[in-house]
């Protein structure tokens, strides 16, 4: 682990530069500790797969002092490691029908599986929220089973519909709003994933666990889904 100053008022804590579950656990723990102990000098935090990016208040504390405080907080978080926070599994309904699952047949063909098998593999796993970024409420979930992992599209789509569920390599994610995007689309949720008027703003936080529940077309429409 390494703490590097990036600019006058930002630092990044870097972990082993891979996407793995050990990183996820450590980053989660350290993020919580920093939030609980350094909130008076921390302005913003972006936890990701293998790093935590922090903006600190330069008017209150120098970069050198902040780095020292971070080191101390990280050491303390190791002591607290035993206290396990309660795990919450967030369930997301998804319609995997062909009119919204634009790339499902491609993935099935590539994986030498049937479409229902791909859906079953995707929906039977519990995923971790590794990071949130790219767009408001866009949560990077992992890891997708090797059997259905699939690279991004060669040419991104100009418009991916709001609520679309995609796969990119071993990650899976939902587009909270319609946007250009290159992920392989396999379904769509009727849920609103970003809501500026709600206190929580998003359904997900980094560190949460997520499961996808397949729903029928009538259920999708009844829940407010748009085809």
């Amino acid at each position, binding site marked *: 682990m*390494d703490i*590097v*100053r*990036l*600019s*006058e*008022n*930002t630092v*990044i804590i*870097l972990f082993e*530069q*891979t*996407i793995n579950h050990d990183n996820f656990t450590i980053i989660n723990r350290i993020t919580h500790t920093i939030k609980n102990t350094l909130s008076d000098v921390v*302005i*913003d*935090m*972006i*936890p*990701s*797969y*293998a*790093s*935590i*990016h*922090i*903006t600190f*208040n*330069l*008017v209150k504390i*120098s*970069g*050198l002092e902040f780095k020292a405080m971070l080191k101390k907080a990280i050491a303390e978080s190791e002591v607290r490691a035993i206290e396990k926070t309660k795990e919450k599994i967030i369930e997301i309904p998804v319609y995997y029908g062909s009119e919204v699952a634009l790339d499902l047949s491609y993935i099935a063909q590539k994986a030498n599986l049937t479409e229902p098998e791909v859906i079953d593999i995707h929906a039977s796993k519990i995923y971790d929220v590794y*990071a*949130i*970024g*790219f*767009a*408001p*409420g*866009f949560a*990077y979930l992992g890891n997708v089973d090797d059997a259905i992992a699939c690279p991004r599209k060669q040419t991104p789509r100009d418009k991916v519909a709001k609520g679309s569920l995609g796969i990119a390599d071993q990650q899976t994610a939902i587009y909270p*709003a319609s946007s250009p995007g290159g992920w392989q689309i396999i379904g769509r949720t009727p849920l609103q994933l*970003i809501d*500026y008027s709600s206190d929580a*703003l*998003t359904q997900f*936080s*980094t560190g949460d666990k997520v499961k996808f529940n397949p729903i029928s077309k009538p259920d999708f429409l009844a829940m407010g889904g748009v085809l």
Partner: protein
Amino acid sequence: MSLRVIKSSFLTLLQDYGRYGYQHVGLTHSGPLDEHAYLWANRLLDNHYNAAQLEISYGVFAAEFLEDSVIALCGADLRATLGGKSITPWQTYNIKRGDIIEFASPKHGLRAYLAIKGGFKVTETLSSVAAVVRENLGGLNGDGSKVSPGDQIVYEKKAHQMTSRVPEKFIPAYSSSITLRFVPNISVSSAGLDAQAVFQNTPYEVTQNIDRMGYRLSGEPIQVPLEGIVSQGISVGSIQLPKDGQPIVLMKDRQTMGGYPLLGCVTAIDLPLLAQSSPGTKVKFRAVDIDDVESELVIYKKFFNVAA
């Protein structure tokens, strides 16, 4: 009373100091692209550093003041007129009810800041009025819209008059050739020492591809040793090196995360110079020590009474 917008053709946005504390949900900081001009405009009026202003990019904007007040104009010279008479930036102007202010086209710089005594009174969305079109967030209606004709932006009537101007030595030239200082990235996410050395010796030009998210530059392409990095949080001013070897400097509306190798980070004090640079501007980069620029920024923030 309010400012009634008559004409707004390009990009005029309501901005305060920015939306902080929401990066963990993927929201950008936003805020004025030229923080230096923005902070001076509020300082000239004795406003709070976070008071809302209009960021007028490229001009073609006109509005009528429906009540007396005092304004400050800082940043780009967009050939502005007040009541038909030419006015120049970096000073305050007393406003009479019915006065019309108009911005034509860029003479020097790209973005003008129009501040009013007490700030524009706009409801905050998620602790800020900063408008982000892409996020449908902030601005007059809270939905990220640009300022458009017919909008009425509220301010308080101020009868007293004042005249105040920015001392000459603090007014930037917005030259057609600029040098930006940067803190080299020394982490595993760095594009590497060789790339940084080439970067410092390469003259660049600002391309047509510039917006509030980032400025793309062009020059002799730099060989990229690694294709990408594990996506990580991105600081304002970060210099990314994508596969084509042409650097991108990330600005206030950048995405919170990025996966391109990094050359370093342009200093906060120099970034406004780039924000005012039009396509074709020559850019050079010079590596600096982080401790030097840190103390400079602390002094700068204290001078403008910035709390964070």
